Each structure stands twice: as structure tokens, then as C-alpha cells.
């Protein structure tokens, strides 16, 4: 029994990580039609900025309030990079979708190489608060605190995102833009401002995933974002592009499936099952669990 609880909670921790990356990807794709390969870069920037801040920024540290400051700095940095990318690189190519994808591909190659050039290719130990190394006993299962932290953070982000989308004017514009961008433009609203906003939110969520994921893994390395990104893409497609709630459901399904099959089957089998799930969903319900039709 305790094994099942442990697997469920670690699976949810993984799901939280996927959700943090996928929610931004999904919103960006739903609104701006940009398949953002550079999203892994935002994650890397968040992780490295947090790591840097914990060591160098006055007031920040690896424990207590200082750690909060460091994470906040990382999230801000990720968000800033995302906004910069949108303004400088994506906006001039507005409505030329393939070119936008190509630019983000180039950016993901160059950006990761830049991180590698600055801090080296090897994984570095990540400064993390003492209490995240411990375990908490939940119904007899020893669950690592870092995983619980991820779950809480993802739940908070999900709640905040939903509240933002539902109760604010910009949230309304974003929801309407995902539904039908041309109509929103026709009503005289500058949707491109919403693009920048969505990039900022997505970048912040990805940076948070980078920082907390590094706490979870204990190390930070330049390639971290890339491997997470593929599963985040899968989560986005399963959940339906443009739907935050769909991403949350899909992340939970993918995380739990992966964790349970990897434990009870051979290691690696869970990853294959996830791809199988993707194929089944795409063939039976191409628009995803909760999304609009992703193709013509």
C-alpha cells in the first residue's frame, strides 16, 4: 500500500513538473500558434538564474527566505527572457507560423549552447534548502519533500492561472483569442499585447519548473530543458492545445502512467506507454482531451 502511495505522489510530482512546462506551451500555441521549441531554454534560464542568485545575489541564499528570493529572481529572469524573445524574434514573424517554429528551433540550439558555454556542460550541484532533502511520512509512505513542493507549486500555479483567465480582462482576451483570434482583432483589441503576456506567463511557469525541478533532481545542467520538453509537448497534445485544464489532466495521466509502469514493468517501459497513449489519443480524438481542433 505504501508503495502505491509513494508512486502516486512521486508520479504527481512528475506531473507537476510537466504541467508547469506544458501550461505555458499550451497557452502560447493556442493563442499565437507558435510551437515553441525555445520553451526548454526558458526552463534552463530559470534554473541557472536561481542557481546563480543563490550564490551571488545579496539577500538570496539556499535556505529559508533567501531561497524564496533566489527562486523569485529565477522566475523573473525566465519571464524576462521569454518577453524579450517574443518582442525581438517572434513578433516580426507574426502569422508566418513555419518561420516562427524555425526561429524557436534555432533559438533552442543556440540558447542551450550559450548556457553550456557559460557554465559548462556538466551538471552542477544545486543549492537547495535542507528540508527539501528530507522525507515526509504520508500514510506510511516516505515521500521526498521536493516532490511535495512541486505538487504544491503546480497546484498554486494552476489555481492562479485559472483565476487569472476567468476573472480578469486580459484573461478574457486570452480565452477569446484562443477561441477565435480574428474576431478579437476585429473587435479592435490588440491581440499582440496578449501574446507578450502569454509568453511572460509561460516563461515564468517554465522558469519555476526549472528552479523547482533542479531542487528535485539536486543538480542543474544545460540539457535539462530539452528532455522535459518532449514530454511536455506530449502533454500539450494529449490535453488539447490551448487548454490549461486539459494540460493539467494530461500531465497527471502522463506522470502517473510513467511512474507506475516504470516501477512495475521494466525501466523505460513507462516512457513508451506515454507515447502509446499519445498515439491512441491522436487517432481517436485528434483535438486532445479538452482542446479545440488542432488542425484543419
Amino acid at each position, binding site marked *: 500500500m505504501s508503495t502505491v502511495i509513494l508512486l502516486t505522489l512521486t508520479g504527481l510530482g512528475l506531473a507537476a513538473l510537466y504541467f508547469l512546462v506544458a501550461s505555458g506551451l499550451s497557452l502560447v500555441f493556442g493563442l499565437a*500558434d507558435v510551437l515553441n521549441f525555445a520553451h526548454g531554454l526558458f526552463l534552463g534560464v530559470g534554473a541557472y538564474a536561481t542557481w546563480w542568485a543563490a550564490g551571488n545575489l545579496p539577500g538570496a541564499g539556499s535556505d529559508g527566505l533567501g531561497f524564496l528570493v533566489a527562486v523569485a529572481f529565477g522566475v523573473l529572469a525566465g519571464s524576462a527572457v521569454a518577453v524579450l524573445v517574443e518582442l525581438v524574434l517572434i513578433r516580426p514573424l507574426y502569422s508566418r507560423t513555419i518561420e516562427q517554429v524555425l526561429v524557436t*528551433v*534555432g533559438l533552442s540550439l543556440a540558447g542551450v549552447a550559450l548556457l553550456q558555454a*557559460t557554465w559548462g556542460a556538466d551538471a552542477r550541484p544545486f543549492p537547495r534548502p535542507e528540508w527539501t532533502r528530507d522525507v515526509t511520512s504520508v500514510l506510511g509512505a516516505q515521500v521526498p519533500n521536493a516532490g511535495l513542493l512541486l505538487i504544491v507549486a503546480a497546484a498554486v500555479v494552476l489555481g492562479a492561472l485559472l483565476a487569472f483567465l476567468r476573472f480578469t480582462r486580459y484573461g478574457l482576451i486570452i480565452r477569446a483569442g484562443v477561441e477565435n483570434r*480574428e474576431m478579437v482583432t476585429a473587435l479592435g483589441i490588440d491581440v499582440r499585447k496578449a501574446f507578450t503576456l502569454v509568453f511572460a506567463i509561460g516563461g515564468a511557469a517554465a522558469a519555476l519548473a526549472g528552479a523547482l525541478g533542479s531542487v528535485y533532481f539536486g543538480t542543474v545542467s544545460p540539457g535539462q530543458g530539452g528532455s522535459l520538453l518532449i514530454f511536455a509537448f506530449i502533454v500539450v497534445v494529449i490535453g488539447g492545445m490551448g487548454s490549461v485544464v486539459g494540460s493539467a489532466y494530461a500531465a497527471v495521466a502522463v506522470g502517473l502512467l510513467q511512474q507506475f509502469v516504470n516501477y512495475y514493468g*521494466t525501466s523505460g517501459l513507462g516512457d513508451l506507454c506515454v507515447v502509446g497513449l499519445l*498515439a491512441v489519443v*491522436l487517432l481517436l480524438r485528434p483535438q486532445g482531451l479538452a482542446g479545440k481542433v488542432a488542425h484543419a
Partner: protein
Amino acid sequence: MTEVKSPEVPAPPAAVPDELTPGHSRWHGLRPYAPLVALVVAAILPYSTVNLPGVFEGPLNSPGTLQLLAICLVFGGLAAGYDLLFGRTGMLSFGHALYFAAGVYGTDVLVTRAGLPLWQAALLTITGGTILAALLGAVALRTVGIAFAMVTLAFAQVGAILVARDFGGLTGGEEGLPLDVSGLPAALVGVTNTVNLYWLALAYLAVVVLVVHRVSGSPTGRVLAGLRDDERRIGVLGLDPYRFKLVAFTLAGGLATAGGTVYCLIVGGASPHVTSSELTLSLLVMVVLGGPGTRWGPVLGGVLYMYLDHRLTAFGTSDAVNSLPAFLSHPLSQPLFVLGTVFILAVYFFPGGLASLRTRLTPLTTALRRR
């Protein structure tokens, strides 16, 4: 809701057929033979002992240089095969690395683990890779646009996981699998025989270019171009887009598998990085840099990309770069940083790639000539 959210693949700029551009010189009549001349020059290149300092590390006929050239040629062929999908049919596949990796690992496993002779292993691998492409293509092509890209990416990821997790101890996992050379023909083994591998790579490139050109010149090729430009119209004409796309996908997969077999022989083994999605991304970069849908652009892009990828490492560790301040020298020592930046600039300023350079420079040259 009828909104079309799938990114319509914009047609790459139509290549102006060479026959239509007015010839200025008496060499005009010889132009159709230029590829043949280039092939002959490439074939006799290993007999030259010219030393090009800075361009290559040793003389042209040294094994190191020949191996680098052979890798460049293989990737030129791969890029031309990928262009059959991206540039000529308008399919954005993110899983092309899978078929290349199938070629590399298929050959390696059959020769090293099963002890088959090379020709049997190669034949089995290429047949298997083509069938794999047909099967996976049949599933993936039920989706279009971004969903298609995602499904192919996911299939390729399965390949990467299978190789990395080393099920059954076949692939050697993270360490890769060196090729067992004891059963290979003697002409393909050893440093002194690198020249034969070079010729093999050249032959592969020639075959791919020939196949791609023949296909795109055939009625099928015209349907493929039609699919790229307007898929619905092809459907209205009574042709089945699905079948034609599957043909192109299978053919490109088979060509990539053959490339994998050649690559496996050249580098003498398999390593997991050939399964990574980054390989597909770099194929995309090659094609876009060269010029999608053009005759020689993808080949040029592939050769140049691999050359730069290898040589920029040497350039990055050279004294000229190391003497620069750290904020310049560190990024410059990363080939991918340089290539990624060049790629972004190319998307902005040279959308037609290298192949469009001539037409883009025409106004300039005519203006110069007029003076």
C-alpha cells in the same frame, strides 16, 4: 468553429528552372553537365595531396580529412532526402532521425551481434527501415500539420528510449556499440581504406540526389508539389493525398536508413546521439539553410552544416578565439551557438536559403555590370 489553426506550410520560393534563366555566356550549353563534372571532381579528390591550411587539418587525401568529407557527403544526402518531405511535399516531420538511427543501429546490431555478412545486414536493414517508415507513416499521416510533427517526434522518441534503455542488451545503451569489423570486407576496414568509405558516401549522395530528382520530375513529384501548395485541391482532383504522402514518407525513410548504414561504416559503430531529436532539428536547419525545395540547396546545406559543426570545434579552441575576451570566446567555442545564430539570421534575411543567393544578388550584379 471552422477556424483553421494548423500552420499552413508556406510554399518555399519556386526554384526558377535553369533553362529559363537567360544564359550570358558560351558555357550555358554545358550547364546540364555541371553536376556530372562536380561528381567526377569529387570522385578524384582523394588523389590530390593539396594541403589547405585552416580549411582541413591535413592534406586532402589524409584519412582524417576524407572521413570528415565522407560524413559531410552522407549528411548532404540525408538533407536531400529530408527535403523530399519538407521542401517538396510540405510535411514537417520531427522524427526523421528514427529512420537514420534504424539504419545505423540495424546494420551495427546485425553485423556485430548476429554476425551476418555486411551485404545481408545492409539489405535487411534497408528493407526493414523502409517497412518501418511505411508502417509508422501510415499511422502518423492520419494527422496533419503540427499534430503530424508531434506524432513523428513521439515515434522518434520511442526509438531513442529503446536504444538508450538497451532492452535485451542489443544496443549497448549510453555507451553505443562499436562495429565488429572482423566480418567486414577488407576494403572497408582500416585507416588506409578510408578512401573507399569516402567513395561509398559519394555514391550514396549521388543515388539520393538522383532518386529525389527523378521523383520530383515525375508525375508523382508534381502531385507532391501540389500537396505542398494546396492539399484540398489535390483531393478535389480525385487523387488521394494520403497515398502520395505515404509514398514520399516511405521513400524518404528508406533513403535515410540507407544513409544510416553508410554512416555506421564510416564512423565504425553506433552511438545514441543519432537517435536524438536534435538530429532531426539539425536536418531541418540544413534544409532551410540550403533552400527547401531547390535542386542543390539541401545538399549544399547538409555538407556545409556538418563541415561547420566539425570544424567550428577546432576553430573554437584555436588561439584566435581564445585570445578574445571571455564573453566572446566562450560562445564562439560552441558550434551549435554559431550555427543556431546563423540559422536564425538566415530565416530572417535569406528565407530561400543558400540556393536563393544568386537570384537575390542578381539586381546587385546587374547594377554593377551596367556601370
